[in-house]
């Protein structure tokens, strides 16, 4: 049967991989390529690269980074997000070597463009990245460029429920980088049949096991916390290996 996925999330800021905490604080890690090569060796199920300074600086997607990664002969599924403004951007991201594209600020800025991308490269190649938080216990969608919280738009939810976007990465941006803090309540807002990826504040195998037990969860993303120990992927997969997760 289909396995769930432990996903290595790499945040890139001015071309170096960084640890990101609460969407505001960053610590240097090193070259993204070396990190990615290492995750493949560790047997991670998928790699998501998020370039978080491309949209602000209007540089478009970091195609050079993607093709550098692909030219290493990477044999792990790669999804890229960051600076994708148009269909043309999305197609060139795929052409440079990524399987799927992650859309974040584009969903807010121009949802139609996102739906156009879905039509051309297929909904299965699209992940919606949604940093969410409870503000006065109301679920809000965080626009990380304008640094403001918005209502969760029904259009985005329709796009998801009508299968125009195959998977949604729910990012607990308040707890990102903080120890065992991912809030599961963020998931309840989405219909049971949605395919959700949980990310942000996942730091223990126990959390991974609990999250993987939730029906709508198809993958759990771990970022900072993969960098502290050798063979971290094995630690996080724990005894799920060979059952819920591939062996």
């Amino acid at each position, binding site marked *: 049967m289909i396995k769930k*996925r432990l996903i290595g999330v790499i945040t890139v800021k001015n071309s170096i991989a960084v640890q990101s905490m609460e969407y505001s604080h960053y610590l240097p890690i090193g070259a993204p390529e070396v990190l990615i090569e290492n995750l493949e060796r560790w047997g991670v199920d998928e790699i998501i690269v998020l370039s978080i300074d491309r949209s602000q600086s209007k540089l478009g997607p970091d195609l050079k980074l993607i093709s550098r990664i692909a030219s290493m002969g990477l*044999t792990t599924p790669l999804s890229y997000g960051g600076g994708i403004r148009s269909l043309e951007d999305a*197609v060139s991201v*795929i052409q*440079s070597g990524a*399987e799927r594209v992650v859309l974040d600020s584009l969903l807010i800025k121009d949802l139609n463009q996102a739906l156009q991308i879905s039509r*051309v*490269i297929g909904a299965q190649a699209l992940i919606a990245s949604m940093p969410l938080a409870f503000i006065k216990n109301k679920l809000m969608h965080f626009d990380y460029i304008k640094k403001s919280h918005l209502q969760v738009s029904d259009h985005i939810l329709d796009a998801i429920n009508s299968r125009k976007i195959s998977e949604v990465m729910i990012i607990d941006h308040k707890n990102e980088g903080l120890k065992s803090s991912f809030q599961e309540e963020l998931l309840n807002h989405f219909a049971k049949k949605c395919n959700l990826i949980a990310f942000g504040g996942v730091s223990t195998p126990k959390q991974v096991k609990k999250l993987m037990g939730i029906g709508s969860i198809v993958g759990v993303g771990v970022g900072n916390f993969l960098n502290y120990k050798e063979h971290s992927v094995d630690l996080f997969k724990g005894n799920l290996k060979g059952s819920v997760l591939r062996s």
Partner: protein
Amino acid sequence: MSRKNIGIVNYGAGNINSLKNTLQNLGYKVSTPSLDHEIRSCDSIFLPGVGAFPEAMKALQITGIDQSLKKFYRSGKPMIGICLGFQLFANKSHEIEPTRGLSFIDGEVIQLPQTSFHIGWNEVNFKGNSKKTFSNKNVFFFNHSYFLQLKSNNILGKSSIKSIKNFPAFYKKENLAGVQFHPEKSQENGILFLDSLLKEMLND
């Protein structure tokens, strides 16, 4: 014996980079042909594919690559389709709007039931001699929402999801092969699969 030359057809819809490097690591010369004479000179052809069927077919027709592929197929040299590339071999696809395919395989591309997506690592149950190389515990990376429905005893590997059991994941008949999963993105299993498939079809 000089290295065989594999051509990954470049028609603007496909993830060429990673497949190219994986094949090079396996010791093959790799080109990315798009013109007819380039395609003709390859020892074997890969047809990659990411995106929607109609767009891809249009791209093949505008560039005339569809004709080169048909000549290549008739020449008997091995041709391997990956994911959408495999689906393009079919007679017809219903993705977005009904579109004719290359018609190398008698079958139609339809949506997975309940519009479900098949994304992630899943087991493939192999049949025939490929069963030896792969225990059924081996998982490969899938990323599609349509599949090629066909009645043929040339289906050598099947996969299952909640909404549909045993749909075709690996097809092979004489010089034509197709896989619904991405071997170039399935780590060691994928490399092993590509290596043994190419050795078999190019009878290295």
